[in-house]
């Protein structure tokens, strides 16, 4: 079910500003790939190009190719709405729909397409909440508003919402940066479980987190202020953290950066 992503020659703009330039990489299915790098290096922008969310920002524009199992997301005739069903996303700050109950939040994506019976919906909601390690905590209050949960629970609710529509890829944009250490741990555990089923890409500022959860790590960097971000190297996480092939990566990881 998980899919491979092949990016080639990808450049993204905000208006006239070039945010990332000429990025090519492969993301393996059923694995966790972490993006690390200093602030402003374009790793989040790059992540958002992988499900065509970049273009919803005013002035956002993309050149290059992103192949999802050999299908170009930016090809002629591709519907960005369909792309986002294939490639789900979890955001930095938990963003459950504030007016919806926990149940409705998880079911939101399914209801868009319609055609589900009530019992089917309930099954998928339970499965997704279990998948997000949240079921036991919320099963008795599915009709309460999602905004009433703790930050960590909200984030897992958002993950449940994302996986309910059975995407092929799950993008996570610093999913733990707004959470406390215990909630972070819960989400990191969850990632290990989710990767059996999904291709996971995570942007993180926390290098220990990248080392803990990811199979492969990509390091992004800027050539200078106002310059576009670039991919410096992508390798097995173990290699990146023990013996990177580029000096800049080693500097960043060992804290000698900047």
């Amino acid at each position, binding site marked *: 079910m998980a899919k491979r992503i092949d990016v080639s020659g990808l450049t993204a703009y905000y208006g006239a500003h070039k945010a990332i330039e000429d990025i090519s990489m492969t993301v393996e299915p059923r694995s966790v790939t972490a993006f690390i790098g200093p602030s402003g290096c374009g790793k989040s922008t790059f992540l958002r190009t992988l499900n065509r969310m970049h273009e919803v920002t005013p002035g956002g524009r993309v050149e290059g190719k992103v192949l999802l199992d050999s299908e170009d997301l930016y090809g002629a005739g591709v519907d960005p709405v369909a792309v986002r069903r294939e490639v789900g996303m979890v955001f930095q700050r938990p963003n459950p729909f504030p007016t919806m109950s926990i149940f409705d939040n998880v079911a939101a994506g399914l209801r868009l397409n319609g055609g589900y019976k009530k019992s089917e919906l309930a099954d998928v909601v339970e499965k997704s909440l279990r998948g997000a390690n949240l079921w036991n905590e919320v099963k008795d209050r599915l009709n309460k508003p999602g905004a009433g949960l703790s930050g960590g629970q909200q984030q897992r609710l958002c993950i449940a*919402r*994302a996986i309910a529509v059975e995407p092929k890829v799950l993008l996570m944009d610093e999913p733990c940066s707004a959470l406390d250490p215990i909630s972070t741990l819960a989400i990191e555990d969850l990632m290990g479980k989710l990767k059996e089923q999904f291709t996971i890409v995570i942007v993180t500022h926390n290098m220990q987190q990248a080392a803990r959860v990811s199979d492969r790590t990509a390091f992004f960097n800027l050539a200078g202020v106002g310059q576009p971000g670039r991919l410096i190297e992508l390798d097995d996480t173990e290699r990146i953290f023990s013996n990177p092939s580029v000096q800049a990566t080693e500097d960043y990881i060992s804290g000698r950066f900047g």
Partner: protein
Amino acid sequence: MDISTHKTHTGAPAPTPRPAASQRKHAARGATRLGDRVFLGLTRGSGILLLAIMVAIAGFLAYRASLAISKDHGNFLTTFEWNTGQQPPVFGIAVLAFGTVVSSIVAMVIAVPVAVAIALFLTHYAPRRLSGPISYVIDLLAAVPSIVYGLWGALILVPHMNGLFGWLNDYFGWTGVLSWEGGPPRSMLTVGILLAVMILPIITNVSREVFRQVPRMHEEAALALGATRWEVIRMSVLPFGRSGVISASMLGLGRALGETMAVATVLSPNFLIKASLLDPGGGTFAQNIASKFSEASEFGRDALIASGLVLFVITLLVNGAARMIIARRKEYSGANA
């Protein structure tokens, strides 16, 4: 203006530098210095004056109204007549209340959906280059005086309604509500349409601001689930903006209920309640006051004041409801901030 005048006559005691802590304590306690006392007195006095005005409005209107109502030989609430000149006087607000409510409902039914659509157009559909200037123009249109809307309504809108009325009568005349005897189209429907045009800019402006405040992350949540633009609006924009739109509508409703000139110019009034929105007739509180005022005796004026008091109470209730909704929304958005 006045600020400079009282600054001079208070003749501040030379502000001897004091330790900051004691200074703050003084400020917190109220005002111990002369300058502070005078200034506080002035500002608090203005606030109290404002309260007094409100109380006086209610009090004097009620007093004059009671003079009239006590001599009313009809039932003030249910009489279908307004004869304050005859002996004994007989007058009642039934027709006016009916007309005011009907014309406002028509206006709301037309204006609210259109205003919400325009607000969505400006925030989510229009190209950026277009939405800025259009918002600006709509802001300005909200400032056009109602008498100009009235003049336009009477001289331009009314002649254009003939065709629509004929068509409505042909196809929907059987409902009774939309039948037309062919009189001049100076009826409640025309009034409602004109009021709708008038309150459209106000409701649009407020709704637009509310939609603009929808947190980006709620919209992105919907987008990332594979929602189309309309689905994003339905899932995150409308639920977030609902209470804001309601309070915007209430503001518009308050304006429509109390509008005088736009109704007075367009409606050809009489003291009948008609089932049809298309046949001329009926009246509203404000319109009735404006048209009857110049020929009214002192007693007639008191009777008009009595009807104004009712209008006052109605608008108070509507505005109170709007404020409550806004207050609730503040709590709600605060919880999610």
